[in-house]
């Protein structure tokens, strides 16, 4: 049973989130560091270079690393303050087992034995697939590889998937279909060298801030900027052309832009004929998508759509960038394909300053989706159903091909199966689905049905509170390894300090578990370097070929772009040069995209579009960033952002508490009335738990191919609450986070940040 083992306030009191504001001993005591460790930020896919300052074997601060070419010292506030996750009072220091009154510390031997016994008992009773593995895209390449191998060889389950399912899979699936490879087509340096940047569904200023610099460097040379977004984000504010698209209509808009491009004579016929296939179907499919015909539905005047097409045709070199804004949809893959269609039709790819990229969101969102922790994938971005790929990997792992499991369930499907009782046990690392999956009430109900749930984490996340067993793992700065940035650049994560207390490096925990499960001979690694070496060799001949990449080469070159198929190969910063694509015939594929409306559209009962996303001071489910005081202080609570016209109609004033209700549940939060969003759309950031969780409102609707959730469109209604807010009786509903309401005045759950100095005790 995985209900909360103790009252929520008791768990929060013991395990946080509490806020850390200062290095150990305070700023005055910091002094000069003993060493500076050149590594990378632990948060988003930009993976900025940064130096961690270490004193007395503790991380005490950061300094910009100006020599690293991607960000040249630039950082966002998360990168500056990330070191405050170290020496944190909430840090898990010992294995914890659920008791009748909370969690109790146990030894590693007891903990590992318990996992083996419970997992094996479940698998004996209900089959190998009754246990699933959930993994994460913040893990290094080494750990991502290890998790896939662990699931297939040690557990023998076909169900392993990762939280990149909530991030990159729509773009990945579309890229694979169109190009035969899933990687940003161009290095970021090409953004600075282009003549037109088209950004769709990406609040780059908040979600990938360093990309802002690349866009401005292009504009300093005279490049134009078009931004497509329902919100007037900081980068959109300065755009030459801003298209405030109605959420869920991206593919229709892109079809209309392509239609206008064709009408303007902008198709590169030679490129299309020589390097692509399928354009005639696209041309036919969008015949009716004139800017005039779609204007009302996409929410943009036809003249502006034509303006976009004209700017695109006129620019000799273009860079099309998109992110979750067009991908988090029940039509996510189609939305991406509609963008790629425009790029291919105009031949604007595979040249310096000219191409296409999806802006990967998670820290290792790229590498984390290549090496086998996805339900349908084997290392080297191989296909688990491809007989050649299966035989290759099985031979190198030294197992019969027939023993390799087949395609498993995606992360959302795993939760559906947990809910239905088909999956009884869960082994999880680096994933906080209670906050990050849609329809949080359903996720919680699923967690409560598990027979056995073990999780490896650094803090007791909202999801980990439901575990039977919690194993204290390592922070990014506590282990060696590599990640692959949004550019496709493989870079080195360097260890700054040891894990504190009894906490252990993640790879060691996984290998120890494998040993307990009787697969020790296949997990006999001396450390991450040995794991990388196996991954590197095994990727040879795969799509994501790392075989020519070594840690030493990464350090010498400040990163190596894959594919890199030989030790003397320099890596491949730009794909598709000369119009050579990764499909066997070398041609890119067009895909005709017929517009489908969002899975849940507005109606009389729920007349407002809800879209969700991130803010600059928080990262994903907030397990780390909701513990960093200065970041929490930026915006301690989520607010619902709405346009003054909508606010007037609803009778809502700025700052007033409102109730936002969808078919799944409701939230009460403060209104932020701003004229920088479409009047038919409201926005709520999703980083918070419980009664502040935007994902209580979102729906379990998925892209049919990629299974990415529709986080960017849900239908809601909004009612003002009486001033003061607290007096309003809440309708009955289940508090998703876990039962008891937050105690008044709790520093984190209640809202106001606690004063500096509250946390900072050593491990």
């Amino acid at each position, binding site marked *: 049973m995985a209900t909360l083992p103790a009252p929520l306030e008791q768990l929060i009191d013991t395990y946080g989130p509490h806020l850390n504001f200062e290095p150990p001993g305070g700023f005055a005591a910091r002094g000069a560091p003993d060493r500076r460790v050149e590594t990378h930020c632990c948060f988003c896919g930009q993976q900025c270079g940064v130096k961690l300052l270490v004193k007395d074997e503790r991380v005490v601060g950061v300094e*910009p690393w100006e020599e690293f070419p991607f960000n040249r010292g630039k950082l966002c506030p998360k990168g500056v303050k990330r070191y405050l996750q170290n020496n944190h009072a909430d840090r898990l220091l010992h294995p914890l087992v659920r008791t009748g009154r909370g969690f109790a510390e146990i030894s590693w031997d007891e903990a590992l034995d318990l996992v083996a016994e419970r997992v094996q008992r479940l698998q004996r009773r209900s089959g190998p697939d009754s246990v699933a593995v959930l993994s994460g895209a913040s893990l290094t390449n080494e750990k991502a590889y290890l998790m896939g191998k662990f699931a297939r060889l040690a557990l023998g389950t076909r169900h392993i998937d990762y939280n990149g399912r909530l991030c990159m899979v729509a773009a990945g699936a579309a890229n694979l279909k169109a190009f035969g490879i899933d990687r940003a087509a161009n290095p970021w340096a090409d953004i600075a060298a282009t003549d037109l940047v088209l950004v769709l569904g990406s609040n780059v200023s908040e979600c990938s801030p360093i990309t802002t610099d690349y866009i401005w460097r292009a504009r300093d040379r005279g490049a134009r900027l078009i931004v497509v977004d329902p919100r007037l984000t900081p980068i959109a504010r300065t755009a030459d052309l801003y298209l405030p698209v109605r959420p869920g209509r991206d593919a229709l808009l892109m079809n209309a832009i392509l239609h206008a491009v064709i009408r303007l004579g902008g198709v590169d016929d030679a490129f299309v004929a020589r390097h692509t296939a399928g354009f005639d179907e696209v041309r036919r499919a969008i015949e009716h998508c004139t800017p005039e015909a779609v204007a009302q539905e996409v*929410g943009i005047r036809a003249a502006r759509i034509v303006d976009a097409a004209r700017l695109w045709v006129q620019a000799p070199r273009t860079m099309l960038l998109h992110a979750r804004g067009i991908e988090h949809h029940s039509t996510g893959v189609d939305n991406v394909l509609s963008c790629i269609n425009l790029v291919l039709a105009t031949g604007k790819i595979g040249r310096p300053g000219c191409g296409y990229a999806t802006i990967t969101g998670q820290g290792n969102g790229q590498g984390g989706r290549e090496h086998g922790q996805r339900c349908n994938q084997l290392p080297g971005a191989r296909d688990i159903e491809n007989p050649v790929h299966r035989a290759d990997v099985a031979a190198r792992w030294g197992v019969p091909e027939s023993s390799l499991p087949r395609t498993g369930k995606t992360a959302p499907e795993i939760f559906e199966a947990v809910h239905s009782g088909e999956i009884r046990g869960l082994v999880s690392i680096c994933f906080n689905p209670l906050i990050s999956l849609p329809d949080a009430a359903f996720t919680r109900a699923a967690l409560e049905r598990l027979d056995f749930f073990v999780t490896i984490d650094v803090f007791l996340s909202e999801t980990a509170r439901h575990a039977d067993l919690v194993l204290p793992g390592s922070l990014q700065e506590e282990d060696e390894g590599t990640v692959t940035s949004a550019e496709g650049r493989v870079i080195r994560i360097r260890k700054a300090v040891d894990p504190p207390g009894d906490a252990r490096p993640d790879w060691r925990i996984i290998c120890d578990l494998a040993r307990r499960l009787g697969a020790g001979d296949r997990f006999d690694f001396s450390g991450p370097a040995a794991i990388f070496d196996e991954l590197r060799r095994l990727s040879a001949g795969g799509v994501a070929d790392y075989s020519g990449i070594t840690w030493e080469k990464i350090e010498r070159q400040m990163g190596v772009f894959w594919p890199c198929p030989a030790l003397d190969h320099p890596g491949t910063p730009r794909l598709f040069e000369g119009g050579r694509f990764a499909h066997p015939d070398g041609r890119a594929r067009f895909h005709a995209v017929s517009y489908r409306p969002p899975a849940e559209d507005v109606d009389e009962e729920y007349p407002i579009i809800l879209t969700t996303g991130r803010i600059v001071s928080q990262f994903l489910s907030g397990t780390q960033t909701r513990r960093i005081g200065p970041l929490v202080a930026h915006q301690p609570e989520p607010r619902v952002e709405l346009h003054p016209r909508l606010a007037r109609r609803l009778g809502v004033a700025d700052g007033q508490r409102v109730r936002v209700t969808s078919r799944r549940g409701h939230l009460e939060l403060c209104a932020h009335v701003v004229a920088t969003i479409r009047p038919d759309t409201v926005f709520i950031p999703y980083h918070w738990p419980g009664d502040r969780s935007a994902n209580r409102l979102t729906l379990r609707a998925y892209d049919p191919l990629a299974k990415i959730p529709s986080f960017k469109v849900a239908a809601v209604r909004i009612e003002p609450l009486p001033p003061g807010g607290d007096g309003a009786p809440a309708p009955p509903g289940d508090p998703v986070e876990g039962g008891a309401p937050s105690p008044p005045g709790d520093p984190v759950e209640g809202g106001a940040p606690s004063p500096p100095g509250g946390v900072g005790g050593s491990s």
Partner: protein
Amino acid sequence: MILELFVDANRCIGCRACEEACSECPGHGGQSMIHLDFLARPTSVQSAPTVCMHCAEPACVAVCPADAIRIDPDGVVLTAMAERCIGCANCALACPFGVPKVLGGRELMVKCDLCYDRTAVGQKPMCATVCPSGALFYGTRAEVEDLRLARPLNRFHFGDAVVVTRNHIMAPAASDGVAVGAPAPRTPAEQHLEEALW
């Protein structure tokens, strides 16, 4: 070669990396000497960092009764000397840019001194090093003129009064000075949102 700070509010994305980085500077004790404001959030996402502009004839120096604020040979207006500052707040009231703050409890004036610790050893100020949008740039005037379309200006018109500063702000190429207090024109993007169909 004179290194100067150039502020381009048009590029500012409001992320507060400058504030957070400033607070990490040795000697700042976790306190930022730079502040970031959203100028009119109900209608715009425009934000702007405020740093000490290091005036050629600093009002803060002129009004300090304790003679606590010194100007170094490079024209950097330094934070008030702790042993002299009497916390009277004259400087805070006099500054045309609203920069100096008097710290409650300590009763001392604090403000940006252009990262004296870092610039003295050839490093850029923390804020300009980390700024992810280039809203804060540290370098020579020739560099910034070479890299950007916007032009650096350091003459500010407060009504009839003109203030000349060591730091520059970046402005559209045609401008020759900044009329402080003039309303910001609506950007094309703000106009495009106004036209949206819904």
